[in-house]
């Protein structure tokens, strides 16, 4: 009896130690910031497109006589007493655009929003610009939740993840300003230091957040699809092809080849499941990243969701390591490792020690 309790105690101790070590290694091993810096540019440009895409219809949607008066949106989202759920309830879909009651104010806010998002994409005051860009994008999303699409839903998620890391460490105006400032003070500029930013835990947390969210998003898509009979039956792609006012190319000739449509439908679900689960596997990762455009580009042509498809491809880049982007991957090393997985290849001593120690713990 005592022996049994001792074994259970040992098991629980090993479990918590192993889990804790894995958790720490996953989240807190310092990583190179190149990946999140690249994502800052790409997601920043996507955010700029998102805000700019409202320009032509800004007054049409949000203006005083627009299609979505603030009061109507408040009622639809349950913000007012006359909401669809009856009694008033606290709703936290805040947007500064609700306060812009005149066209002048609306245009001013729009231009300022675009400047902020532009600063983020260019890497100017990156940390502050990241948070402000998230607020700008969320304000548009919350002001018009009725017209939110998949692109608008994923974009804030990516911005949220990028808020936590040093996204201006590389390929940014911040970096240029830092270099100039040092040169102005006539301090010796260490070329290597300015070219190769040091690894940081914040960069790893930001990248890991992105990775977990992106993988979860793929699993969410697969799970919600499998809740519908048409995805099991292999017909779902047909019902997307048949949407005559959305499709960019007419593939209705595939009605003669429904086996292909079935294969396409099943292939999408299979890929989404595989991506969500196997992207964490070192060998499967490059293959999944290469195959992803084969899913998203035809998808864009059928559904018309071009921006969303491109955003998902951008988001996939979070699984590419900083070393691979910098082009310093040693021969024979995997080019798409996650942060903290090939630290022995270069010389960040703290992260190398952390990874080694964690690996030793897990392996024991």
């Amino acid at each position, binding site marked *: 009896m005592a022996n049994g309790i001792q074994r259970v105690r040992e*098991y629980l101790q*090993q479990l918590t*130690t192993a889990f804790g*070590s894995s958790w*720490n290694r996953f989240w*807190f091993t310092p990583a190179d910031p190149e990946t999140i810096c690249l994502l800052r540019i790409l997601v920043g440009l996507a955010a700029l497109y998102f805000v700019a895409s409202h320009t*032509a219809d800004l007054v*049409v949607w949000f203006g005083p006589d*627009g*299609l*979505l*008066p603030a009061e*109507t949106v408040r009622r*639809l989202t349950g913000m007012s007493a*006359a909401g*669809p759920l009856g009694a008033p*309830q*606290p*709703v*936290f*879909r805040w947007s500064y655009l609700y306060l812009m009651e005149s066209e002048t104010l609306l245009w001013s806010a729009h231009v300022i929003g675009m400047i902020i998002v532009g600063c983020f994409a260019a890497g100017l005051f990156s940390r502050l610009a990241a948070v402000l860009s998230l607020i700008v994008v*969320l304000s548009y999303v*919350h002001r018009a*939740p*009725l*017209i939110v*699409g*998949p692109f*608008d*839903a994923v974009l804030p*998620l990516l911005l*949220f993840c990028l808020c936590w890391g040093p996204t201006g460490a590389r390929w940014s105006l911040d970096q240029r300003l830092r270099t100039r400032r040092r040169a102005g003070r006539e301090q010796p500029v260490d070329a290597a230091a300015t070219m190769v930013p040091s690894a940081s*835990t914040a960069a790893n*947390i930001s990248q890991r957040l992105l990775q*977990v*969210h992106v993988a979860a998003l793929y699993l*969410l*898509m697969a799970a*919600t*699809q499998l*809740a*519908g*009979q*048409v995805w099991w039956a292999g017909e*779902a792609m047909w*019902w997307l092809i*048949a*949407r005559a*006012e959305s499709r960019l190319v007419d593939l*209705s000739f595939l*009605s*003669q080849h429904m086996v292909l449509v079935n294969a396409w439908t099943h292939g999408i679900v299979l890929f989404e499941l595989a991506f969500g689960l196997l992207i964490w596997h070192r060998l499967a990762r490059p293959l999944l990243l290469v195959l992803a455009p084969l899913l998203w580009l035809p998808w864009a042509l059928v559904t*018309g969701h071009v921006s969303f498809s491109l955003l998902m491809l951008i988001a996939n880049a979070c699984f590419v390591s900083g070393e691979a982007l910098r082009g310093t991957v040693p021969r024979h090393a995997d080019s798409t490792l996650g942060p903290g997985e090939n630290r022995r290849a270069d010389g960040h001593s*703290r992260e190398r*020690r952390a990874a080694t*120690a964690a690996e*030793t*713990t*897990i392996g*024991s």
Partner: protein
Amino acid sequence: MRKSLDKPPAPAVPEEVWEYSSLKRTAISLLLIIHFFLAFVAMSGNLAPAYSQLESRILARFAFYTQLLNIDLNFTPFYWTHATVEDVDHRIEVLAQGQRAEVDGDWLVLPDVGWRGTDRYQRYQRLGRVWALISPQDELTASLAQAVGTSFRAQRNVIPARVRCRRHMLQSWEVIRGGTPGERNPNDSSYYQVAYDANLVVSRNGTVSVVKLAAASEIAQPARTTDGKRNTASP
């Protein structure tokens, strides 16, 4: 399992190898766990038709977080299609005063802007979809109809007389293979189904009033096959 139990406990990772202190790591870990837990609960609403009581309570308590960050993706179905009437193209149509309702070309159609691959174009479709979705709720749809009428009057200088939201139903592959010429045309009038229809009355001071034409119960329901499955193929 037996083998691993026989091993000695693993040594702890030396504290100095981490950039963050133990306290900081613990605090961040806690925040991460809370974030992912709430994200999971919020996104589960996309999986099931409704939240459980427990999920609803959790989300109500933490709405300040899930709603603010838009983790609560209620308006965005990530399944793309389940082949229901909600998963078809929608359009909003406005008839100006003096035009004939029976002539399709007389209706002003939204979306009427740009390339269909842009979000700008798709936003109008999404508004139509939500409109059709809430069509049984007269008060809400009336406020949307009024907003559309007001927008046309004020921004396009069109005096609106009628507004409707129509679904563009889908062709089945069997119809394309062997249907009549009319059935094979995806834009045939038989493929359109009215989800909402109302007359608009513009007063002298420019205020738009709404008089709904079809009650929710009169609006066509999704066609069903003999085995009870939903089917949008039939117009």
